[in-house]
């Protein structure tokens, strides 16, 4: 399902001394079935942006088109529930939302809110638990007994159990160990490739952006400052540095190598691309082979 923003502006607490404009004239399109990454440094409006994706916030000016629904300042708070089912949001540190007695009950909480029978909800929960790789014996435990990484999976499963068309994740790998990070990213790409789920990922990990994203949205001070493929967004290292962003590590490495006589075109963004371009440029020395 496609989501687009049409000149969206958003103010927190308008009309008070605390009024603050968090989004300024944001226009963008999140294409259906694709992987979109949103980057930008802290306070650039990313989290405000994603709360517009399922109408948790309504634009102060402009409008948001979610599938065939239009949300603007005058949209009533009623009948927004179907949107919450089509657009699932996994917030930052989602383990803070767990509350049920058992892991399974917590995952089934979402489907139950949408009027699914408790047996069907349990089945949906079990399937979601399997998707995120939670072992069966954990399902009867209290979510508060689990480790941080496991709690994160439970929370993600709680959103996946809704079977959304669009999955939005706000820094889902923050605070996880390398293994946990890789697992979460593998799961997300699998959902996109195998189920054509639309993915929106907020992240500070440029390597993940380079590796998985098809579109990148760069935000700064509440506005969209750049939009395009990873290749276009990462083409200008100086511009990135100005916006307190960095190159993916493979690109950074390539950029340093190019100061020592190596040549890359286009700039490789992933390790694989780097290797492919670098190998032909390396002189072969007397059959030496380092593996």
């Amino acid at each position, binding site marked *: 399902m496609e989501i687009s923003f049409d000149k969206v502006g958003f103010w927190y*607490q308008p009309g008070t*001394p605390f009024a603050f404009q968090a989004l300024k004239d944001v226009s963008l399109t999140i294409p259906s079935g694709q992987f979109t990454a949103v980057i930008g440094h802290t306070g650039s409006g990313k989290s405000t942006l994603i*709360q517009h994706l399922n109408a*948790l916030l309504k634009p102060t000016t402009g409008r948001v088109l979610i599938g065939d629904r239009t949300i603007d300042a005058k949209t009533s708070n009623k009948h927004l529930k179907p949107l*919450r089912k089509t657009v699932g949001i996994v*917030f930052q540190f989602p383990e803070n*939302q767990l509350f049920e007695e058992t892991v399974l009950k917590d995952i089934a*909480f979402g489907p139950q809110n949408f009027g699914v029978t408790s047996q069907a909800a349990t089945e949906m929960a079990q399937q979601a638990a399997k998707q995120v790789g939670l072992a069966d014996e954990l399902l009867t435990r209290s979510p508060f007994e689990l480790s941080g990484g496991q709690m994160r999976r439970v929370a993600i499963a709680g*959103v996946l159990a809704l079977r959304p068309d669009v999955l939005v994740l706000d820094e889902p790998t923050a605070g996880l160990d390398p293994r946990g990070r890789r697992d979460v990213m593998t799961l997300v790409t699998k959902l996109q490739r195998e189920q054509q789920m639309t993915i929106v990922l907020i992240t500070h990990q440029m390597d993940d952006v380079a590796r998985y994203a098809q579109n990148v949205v760069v935000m700064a001070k509440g506005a969209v400052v750049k939009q395009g493929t990873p290749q276009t967004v990462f083409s200008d290292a100086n511009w990135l540095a100005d916006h307190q962003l960095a190159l993916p590590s493979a690109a950074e490495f390539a950029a340093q190598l190019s100061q020592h006589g190596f040549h890359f075109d286009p700039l490789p963004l992933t390790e694989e691309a780097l290797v492919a371009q670098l190998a032909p440029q390396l002189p072969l020395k007397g059959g030496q082979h380092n593996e």
Partner: protein
Amino acid sequence: MNNFMFGRYIPGNSWVHRLDPRAKLLLCFIYIGVVFFANNFWTYLLLTVVLLGSIILAAVPARIFIRGLRPLFWLLLFTVVIQIFFGAGGHVYWQWGVFSITHDGLVSAGLILMRFVLIILISTLLTFTTQPLAIADGIESLLNPLRKVHFPVATLALMLSLSLRFVPTLMDEATKIMNAQRSRGVDFGSGGLRQQIKTIVPILIPLFVNAFQRAVDISIAMEARGYRDGENRTKYRQLKWRSADTISLVGFVIMAGLVIALRQLT
């Protein structure tokens, strides 16, 4: 939750903002005490004039005060209605069973409403112009004499400052958890009472779990930096009593005297 103005601090540098928090607390206590002595038109007029004068000196826009009153509207209405229907005495205008509208009932409803509004506005003025931590410091300083009777003033002050400090944090967190549960299909503020109570559980449990976790973290962080209760601790924020504080205190005492004198007019 974002539009909740009651009890918030509004940054500024007005005459009232710069008063010592101890002075502001004392002024507030004097004012609230005197409100209960007011009994006729002239006393209320004087109190209203003093309040309006203080509001002007605080340079906080009037519409923000009105917004601050808004959440208390139903409480005010309820009190007034109770007074009107159950207040007895004087000429009876209307009667039905135990309900009656009488002259005295109307008068006391008016007085209670006036008192309520005055007290709410002066306390709102205090919180609008004084940072929560300054209020806590002020209370600690005013309670200092109780140290003589071994009252744990420092502990109480620490509890006060910690809880005030975490009000906005907890509110932020409640908003975040509500958003997360809304995204999982919870409908806040709809359905019957039973349904509504059920929606509180998914907020309260995570909120409590996080609050306890945070309490543990804070106490460890404080101990790691050598905090010990009950020592003679020095203060980072020093309170300074200035002549403006004395002047306003004298002003309010005179007002109190005038109100007590004007009482005799009826």
